[in-house]
């Protein structure tokens, strides 16, 4: 499907490897990749424009231009900016100091309002609150019935009436909640498009009747460019306080979250991750940022690499590897460094390109196998490690015995190493990124 941003940046920078310092034009190429990636994630065009401008300025600073891994640096900057835009931490839904807390749900048709009502009720009931649901969707057939069924599922009372007076139902629902000493009232409303003036007006009147502690916009994670128009219109009409992003259990990248946040400044309280009433989770800005960029956990990988890899060493090594001059000693060192970052299987899973590949999903990197490789190499003499060509039959037998492996395994390693060295040399010429230790 979509290439993740880091894949895009990697290919944008691929031709530049070994060329030395980056130029501003190189950064512009990267900015284009970022623009495309955000647009493919459904971030609104206007937001993308502002965002890439800010990133571009930062990326032209020294930290990227001089970097050994400019693609990773750019990804890091993008993520930092994105996370700060999304908010640093989860913001909770406000509660009223004078109960009941009243929450008014609003959104487009089919965005997931009614389901969210039940999810919220269940969530807060579990925290010891006493919620009540009020069914104010008087327009869609069987909407109140839907809420009633869901209310029963989560064991929360539902206030409903026949008739089409949403405002009246809302006020009477609040009164009922007060009479029954419920401390949280969640008011479901009909879905509406923002250009339906009569319907937007109804929502305003419902809001004025229930005086909510929080107005919550329920937004489908699959929403495209129109998310901005929708969010601004709801903001103008009812000044929503925060949002819930639904249907995140699918494969939508969810750029709408960024659009809403950037244009209205409102936080996202929760995300919906399934049809069942328990599928509600607090919103994590950082996770959302990586999801929009399609970066998997590449960021934590970059962080770990930075903690464990010495930059000067790495630079020297890269040169050596690409020149085809890598020895078994270098290889063992590389392997050790990579393994310091964590189990290799886990590292692979964190690479955006890999995580996505079906064929690789079930591949389990055999850590024991890697142990044996390290044992074989340490049973060699220094000169054998530097010049594997000299390893003849009797040396192979000695190495196998010393490392507790078989001659066959030693043969295999030597063959693979030879192959790899050839490959690296070719990468060095073609400018493809080397993956150390694999």
């Amino acid at each position: 499907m979509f290439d993740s941003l880091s894949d895009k940046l990697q290919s944008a920078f691929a031709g530049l490897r070994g060329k030395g310092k980056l130029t501003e034009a190189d950064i512009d190429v990267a900015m284009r990749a970022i623009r495309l990636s955000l647009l493919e994630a459904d971030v609104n065009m206007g937001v993308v424009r502002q965002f890439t401008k800010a990133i571009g300025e930062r990326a032209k600073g020294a930290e990227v231009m001089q970097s050994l891994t400019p693609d990773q640096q750019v990804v890091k900057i993008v993520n930092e900016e994105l996370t700060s835009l999304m908010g640093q931490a989860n913001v909770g839904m406000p509660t009223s100091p004078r109960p009941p807390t009243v929450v008014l749900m609003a959104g487009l048709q089919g965005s997931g309002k009614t389901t969210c009502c039940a999810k919220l009720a269940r969530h807060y009931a579990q925290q010891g609150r006493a919620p009540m649901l009020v069914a104010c969707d008087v327009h869609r057939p069987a909407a109140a019935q839907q809420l009633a069924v869901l209310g029963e599922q989560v064991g929360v009372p539902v206030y409903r009436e026949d008739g089409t007076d949403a405002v009246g139902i809302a006020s009477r629902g609040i009164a009922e909640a007060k009479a029954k000493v419920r401390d949280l009232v969640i008011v479901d409303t009909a879905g509406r498009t923002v250009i339906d003036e009569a319907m937007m007006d109804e929502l305003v009147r419902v809001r004025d009747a229930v005086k909510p502690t929080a107005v919550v916009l329920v937004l489908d994670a699959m929403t495209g460019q129109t998310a901005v128009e929708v969010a601004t219109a709801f903001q103008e009409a009812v000044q929503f306080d925060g949002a819930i992003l639904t249907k995140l259990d699918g494969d939508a990248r969810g750029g709408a979250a960024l659009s809403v946040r950037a244009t209205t400044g409102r936080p996202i309280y929760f995300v919906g991750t399934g049809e069942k009433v328990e599928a509600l989770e607090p919103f994590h800005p950082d996770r959302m940022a990586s999801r929009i960029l399609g970066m998997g956990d590449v960021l934590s990988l970059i962080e770990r690499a930075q903690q464990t890899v010495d930059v000067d060493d790495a630079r020297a090594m890269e040169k050596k590897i690409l020149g085809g001059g890598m020895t078994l000693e270098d290889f063992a060192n590389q392997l050790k460094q990579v393994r310091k970052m964590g189990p290799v299987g886990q590292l692979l899973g964190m690479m955006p390109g890999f995580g996505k590949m079906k064929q690789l999903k079930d591949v389990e990197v055999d850590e024991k196998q890697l142990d044996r490789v390290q044992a074989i190499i340490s049973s060699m003499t220094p000169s054998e490690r530097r010049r594997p060509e000299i390893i003849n039959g009797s040396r192979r037998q000695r190495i196998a015995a010393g490392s507790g492996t078989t001659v066959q395994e030693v043969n295999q390693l030597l063959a693979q190493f030879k192959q790899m060295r050839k490959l690296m040399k070719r990468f060095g010429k073609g400018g493809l990124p080397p993956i150390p230790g694999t």
Partner: protein
Amino acid sequence: MSESDDDRAVWAELFGLEAPPSEEDQAPRRRGLLGRLRENLSRPRQTISPQLAGIFAPRLITEDVWDELEEALIVADCGVDASLALVEELREQAGEGRITNGTELAGALAAAVGRQMAPDPPRIPLTASPTVILVVGVNGSGKTTSVGKLAHRLSELGQKVVIGAADTFRAAAIDQLAVWADRSGAQLVRQAPGADPGAVAFDAVSSAKARGADVVLVDTAGRLQTQRNLMEELRKVAAVVGKADPGAPHETLLVLDSTTGQNGLSQARLFGEAVPLTGVVLTKLDGTAKGGIAVAISRELGTPIKLAGVGEKLEDLRPFDARVYAQAIFSAPE
């Protein structure tokens, strides 16, 4: 000429039915969807993007126009690839001197989009008896409402309709459909909530055959295209329908919310892998969204757009007219 006579002729054409008597000529028919979309587009919030009016102004085309057009297409949710391809196509035409000013550009764009989305006027021929139409899509896209509206149009044209309530999962989905069946005068085949959707679909088709009904509409539960077990369930529903009546389903429609962004492609692709799609119903076009992802879908997958949803009332469904859509969506309001 009343609007409803006009509509009836258009629907009769879609279903390949004898047109009801009317002295209608072709031209006013188009007003249905266009009028509706125009009405929405002319509202202040609906201005597509401020620069569009500029692009289609009757002045000569400049180099900037192409970037602006690309942006406008992306803002309409056509996606980067489809937008670039469209711009490229039009640019070539301009290079050959076939487009020189904004007015011609608007026309050429509408034509290009139209060709892509529905090369021929959409048809849902009712040749089998009964003709079985399976309605699928993600959660909240508007399946149930579309089924209700379709039933209404079919009944109006004298067709005997059976609706199968195969969304047995969502709370009160069956009650919702029952209201629509009642409004449209269709017969509802239902089982208890939680029942096997395949069994409901089978029942619906068998009962339609027994009663000599003309059309069976099968409403299915919303599901995200990435949910493997639910997609497998959908495949089974289609297979069971085929057992009840070889050759069925004759029509499988994907209901796509026009507010959907790039995920729409994944929807069309994965739903199509589970149950081969014969068309798309593009819903909620009465809102702020342009539904451009349907352009990308028809371009990538060749699935034609057959119906457009333009409101919540029984009448608010139209046979999709790609040229009219493209004109209304991509041209500046007069």
